[in-house]
């Protein structure tokens, strides 16, 4: 034994991990669950300091190659490391850590928990709220293989139970609480769930990653799940402090109400929602007079279309419920309810069911994003604005990451499904496709069921089977929801119709003699595109392969994007200085001609003869007075007007065009053109926004840095094909993560190191972007950053460093900007080498890139040469450019011969999509696909 003192224990606890030098040894101290552990600090795989790495799950991850060592045992648990690190005994004396520098004996096999040396999971999942959603999260986490700690905190003293029986059978005393329990006897122990009832959480400390209980106790978490539910919306009425108004949320409410009902003669229910209807139904089944009051002009106005709402009202009346619809309550008293018009409703029990308010106080206190109408905003995986915190059940407001729409659902199914989503996320399982929304309510001896999404304003078709059903249709006559009153076969058929999303004939749907299953068979042969190309359930952090490989998707991109509301770069004004100068160019894949006419205007029109579609302009560039199609000599002027049709009148009075032929109706298709400081753009769209609005203020600034109005001088072109989908190119320039990892050159010669000032800026719509960095002036790379960059090599120098010179000539904080102008233009400003890159897709798996490199007319010869020399960085033989081209080809290769996978673009979850302040981010790629999906309707 050889004990040596080191540093204060508090310092280790505060930092989590600290490197120390003791007795000539480099040792690592770790704080884990309040204990201090000591290990060697040099990785057994390659030279790296372990304490510069990341501690997770009881393991230290080497910063260099992500090898893993178990901190407690030193065991090498994750490749590429195979040899264990030494561990040392520690003890604390007077607050100082003492270390025995004699290493412990090697860890014995099986010291780590779990079979086969598998690493134990030290993560703690804490669930706040032990209702159905919370309890199901705990159970599903185990089902999906989560092996860490599960702590379930509930405020009520009862073990978790389901709420639907509270307003139904339990209220009537037909069932007991025990039968509503979520966990079977012994299940909590079997699942190893720590259930703490009667426990109220005071606040969440996100920094410290723990929750504080009302007693002051802290409960640390790695993942926190908020299942705090919702509370009944309270009503304030004259007299409400003199009489007991009943609300229903918890089992105690149900028990009290059950007792009161058994003694009541008349019940007044305020609120005509499902809870109100169920309570009125329960009262009627006890033979009690029931009155239902709804201030809106019909029942369930916020939830259902009019027809099923009216039908429900009819059912209620049939069951002798007195309905007061469209009437407000003035006051309440022990004798009952007084309506606004003075009518008195006698009741010895008044129940209020006017909705619920999400219990989001804890989330608000922790500054998590909440919705304006209450509730915690989550993504499609139920993750809140803090990636370590999830929300499930009634309190969660799911934001659609494409449309931005927010939606909160209170249902038994939603509690279960949201719990499952979170459990899968925490257990590292892929999300699954979600079931159709489903809801049920037991009313007046029958069961109402709803599948799909019934919007109150939807068109409705009623169909009478064993019981009536109401089908909701969208504008295209597709079934979106079904409200069914007891015919299970109609409900089943509705599920099929909703899933197929194929238009149906409303008359046939309504006709009880139509067999709905044949309707599906006959009319659903071809699924619409959005049903065949379904985005992964995980959301924007995945991009499915079909985005890059499908021909159908590619054709839709031409229609929706390149021929849609986009400005497409076609060339530089400097390429066509004089009248008649033309360039053969493209808009997306579509051939066009850019030509200057005698008025000095630049025109862009399709390079496709109006007669037989021949691509008539064949030269890459040139000067012409007119364009003549070589096939039949149809000629067009410089504006694209049809000027001459040979033998239009025929020969000898025979043949030729008919008398109705008007040449002015047969010019080539002309595009709308705009020019911004020498760059020319065209669009197929009508009434397109101005280019300035299209780019937006922030993007326009970067664009104008290069296109400032200084006259351009074209230096030449590169043209290359790339064996990949065209979108990989803008993605590559929205992927700052790759820059220091792929481009060894940048790092080796100090052009870009992780410490450089840099930014990845995305326009508000997610389509345009600028990747920017500022050249460091002799900056040294910190050891920490260096360790992360595999690419870094000391001591390599350029023989001719002029390549790296940067002559400041722009009013910009950045020395490099790579700007994507959606969809097909990249503006390159790599120090002093300037150029534009135009993307021309050739089908889903290949595109052509046309580069035009330029300087300015007022450059002197040395500046021109400098731009040419610096051009060695870019292009298909550029030190950086060739690597990008190769990497993108590899990506396409990886997809072409595999089946139906998806890309993972999950870096930086704190920024769902958009501008991020870190380069270790894929938020800009997610933003691009958010926009793409909106444009594509997918």
């Amino acid at each position, binding site marked *: 034994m050889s004990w040596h003192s080191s540093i204060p224990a508090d310092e280790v606890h505060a930092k989590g991990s600290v490197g120390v030098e003791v007795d000539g040894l480099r040792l690592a101290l770790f704080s884990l669950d309040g204990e201090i552990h000591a290990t060697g600090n040099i990785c057994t795989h390659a030279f790296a300091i372990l304490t510069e790495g990341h501690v997770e799950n009881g393991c230290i991850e080497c910063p260099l190659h992500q090898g893993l060592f178990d901190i407690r045992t030193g065991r090498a648990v994750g490749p590429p490391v195979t040899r264990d690190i030494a561990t040392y005994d520690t003890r604390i004396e007077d607050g100082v850590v003492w270390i025995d520098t004699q290493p412990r004996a090697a860890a014995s096999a099986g010291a780590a928990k779990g079979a086969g040396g598998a690493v134990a999971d030290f993560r703690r999942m804490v669930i706040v709220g032990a209702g159905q959603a919370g309890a199901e999260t705990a159970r599903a986490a185990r089902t999906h293989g989560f092996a860490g700690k599960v702590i379930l905190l509930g405020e009520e003293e009862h073990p978790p139970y389901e709420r639907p029986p509270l307003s139904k059978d339990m209220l009537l005393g037909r069932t007991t609480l025990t039968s509503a329990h979520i966990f079977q006897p012994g299940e909590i122990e079997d699942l190893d769930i720590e259930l703490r009832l009667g426990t109220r959480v005071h606040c969440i400390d996100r920094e410290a990653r723990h929750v504080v209980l009302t007693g002051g106790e802290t409960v640390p978490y790695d993942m926190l799940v908020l299942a705090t539910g919702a509370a009944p919306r309270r009503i304030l009425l004259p007299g409400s402090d003199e009489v007991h108004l009943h609300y229903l949320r918890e089992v105690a409410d149900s028990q009290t109400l059950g007792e009161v009902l058994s003694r009541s003669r008349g019940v007044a229910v305020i609120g005509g929602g499902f809870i109100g209807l169920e309570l009125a139904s329960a009262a009627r089944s006890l033979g009690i007079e029931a009155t239902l009051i709804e201030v809106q002009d019909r029942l369930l106005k916020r939830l259902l279309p009019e027809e099923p709402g009216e039908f429900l009202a009819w059912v209620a009346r049939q069951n002798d419920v007195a309905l007061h619809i469209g009437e407000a309550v003035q006051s309440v008293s022990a004798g009952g309810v007084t309506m606004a018009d003075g009518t008195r409703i006698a009741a010895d029990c008044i129940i209020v069911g006017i909705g619920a308010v999400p219990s989001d106080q804890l989330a608000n206190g922790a500054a998590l994003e909440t919705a304006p109408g209450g509730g915690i905003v989550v993504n499609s995986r139920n993750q809140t604005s803090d990636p370590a915190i999830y929300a499930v059940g009634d309190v969660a407001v799911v934001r659609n990451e494409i449309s931005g729409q927010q939606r909160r659902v209170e249902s038994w199914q939603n509690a279960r499904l949201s719990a499952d989503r979170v459990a899968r996320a925490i257990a590292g399982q892929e999300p699954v496709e979600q079931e159709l929304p489903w809801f049920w309510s037991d009313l007046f001896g029958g069961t109402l069921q709803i599948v799909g999404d019934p919007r109150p304003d939807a068109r409705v078709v009623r169909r009478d089977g064993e019981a009536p059903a109401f089908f909701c249709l969208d504008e295209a006559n597709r079934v979106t929801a079904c409200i069914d009153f007891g015919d299970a076969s109609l409900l089943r058929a509705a599920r099929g119709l909703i899933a197929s999303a194929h238009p149906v004939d409303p008359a046939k749907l309504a006709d009880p003699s139509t067999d709905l299953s044949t309707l599906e068979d006959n009319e659903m042969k071809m699924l619409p595109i959005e049903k065949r190309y379904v985005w992964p359930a995980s959301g924007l952090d995945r991009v499915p392969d079909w985005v890059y490989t499908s021909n159908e998707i590619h054709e839709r991109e031409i229609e929706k994007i390149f021929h849609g509301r986009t400005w497409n770069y076609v060339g530089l004004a400097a390429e066509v200085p004089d009248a008649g100068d033309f360039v053969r160019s493209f808009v997306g894949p579509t051939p066009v001609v850019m030509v200057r006419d005698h008025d000095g205007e630049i025109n862009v029109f399709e390079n496709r003869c109006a007669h037989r579609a021949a691509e008539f302009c064949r030269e*890459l*560039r040139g000067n012409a007075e007119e364009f003549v199609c070589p096939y039949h000599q149809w000629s067009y002027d410089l504006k694209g007007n049809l000027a001459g049709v040979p033998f239009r009148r025929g020969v000898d009075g025979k043949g030729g065009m008919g008398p109705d032929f008007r040449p002015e109706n047969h010019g080539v298709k002309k595009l709308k053109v705009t020019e911004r400081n020498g760059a020319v753009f065209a669009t197929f769209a009508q009434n397109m926004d101005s280019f300035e609005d299209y780019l937006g203020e922030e993007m326009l600034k970067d664009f104008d840095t290069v296109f400032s109005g200084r006259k351009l001088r*074209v*230096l*030449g*072109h*590169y*043209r*290359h*094909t*790339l*064996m990949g989908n065209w979108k990989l190119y803008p993605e590559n320039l929205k992927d700052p993560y790759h820059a220091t990892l*792929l481009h*060894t*050159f940048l790092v*080796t010669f100090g052009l870009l190191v992780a410490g450089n000032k840099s930014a990845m800026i995305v326009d508000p719509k997610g389509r345009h972007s600028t990747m920017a960095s500022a050249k460091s002036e002799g900056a040294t790379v910190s050891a920490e950053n260096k360790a992360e960059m595999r*690419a870094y090599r000391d001591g*390599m120098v*350029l*023989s*001719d460093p*002029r*390549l790296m010179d940067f002559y400041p000539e722009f009013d910009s904080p950045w020395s490099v900007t790579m700007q994507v102008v959606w969809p097909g233009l990249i503006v390159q400003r790599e120090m002093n080498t300037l150029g534009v890159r135009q993307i021309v897709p050739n089908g889903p798996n290949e595109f*052509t890139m046309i580069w035009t*490199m330029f300087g300015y007319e007022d450059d002197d010869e040395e500046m*021109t*040469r400098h731009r*040419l*020399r610096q*051009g*060695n960085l870019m*292009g*298909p*033989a*550029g*030190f950086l*450019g*060739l*690597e990008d*081209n*190769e*990497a993108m*080809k*590899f990506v396409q*290769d990886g997809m072409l011969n595999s089946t139906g996978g998806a890309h993972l673009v999950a870096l930086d979850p704190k920024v769902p999509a958009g501008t991020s302040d870190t380069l270790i981010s894929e938020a800009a790629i997610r933003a691009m696909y958010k926009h793409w999906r909106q444009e594509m309707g997918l």
Partner: protein
Amino acid sequence: MNDLKHGFTAISARDTREARRDARLEIEEFNAEYCAVLDDGDLMDWPAFFTEDAFYTITSRENWDGNLPVGLVYCEGLGMIKDRALAIAKTSMFGPRYLRHYMTNTRVMGIEEDGTILAGNNYMLVEVRAELPEGRLHQAGRMIDKFRRQDDGRLLLSSRIAIYDTLLVPNALVLPV
């Protein structure tokens, strides 16, 4: 320059038919060695074919015909040629491939008074990749060269301009031509 239709026109006293024939043979040997280094040798040896002040560029016929100076590769001086060799050999990531260079139709178009030889050839670059085992023509074009005789008698390139007709570069050009 000479014009084949109208026979031989000397540009200096030393520019004789015999001298051109000798020079052509010497250049063919030079180019064979040059190709061998690029195809099967060490890229770091490639700069040794150039003079200290050499100019080297690869450009498209589109640019050449339009008097546009941009090059896929653009090296002013031996330093930049060495830097390209270093960058490609030591830092660049690209997929494995076999490249084979062919230089034919060697022409000597004149010999200047100081012995500088003005020459040219046609060239082809064939690329084979594992996923493209049948290979493909990567570039076809011509070169315009200037060779300068060194004190030790060797010829070195003082200028090589490669002009490719193959308008589209397939994916990437990783090695020089």
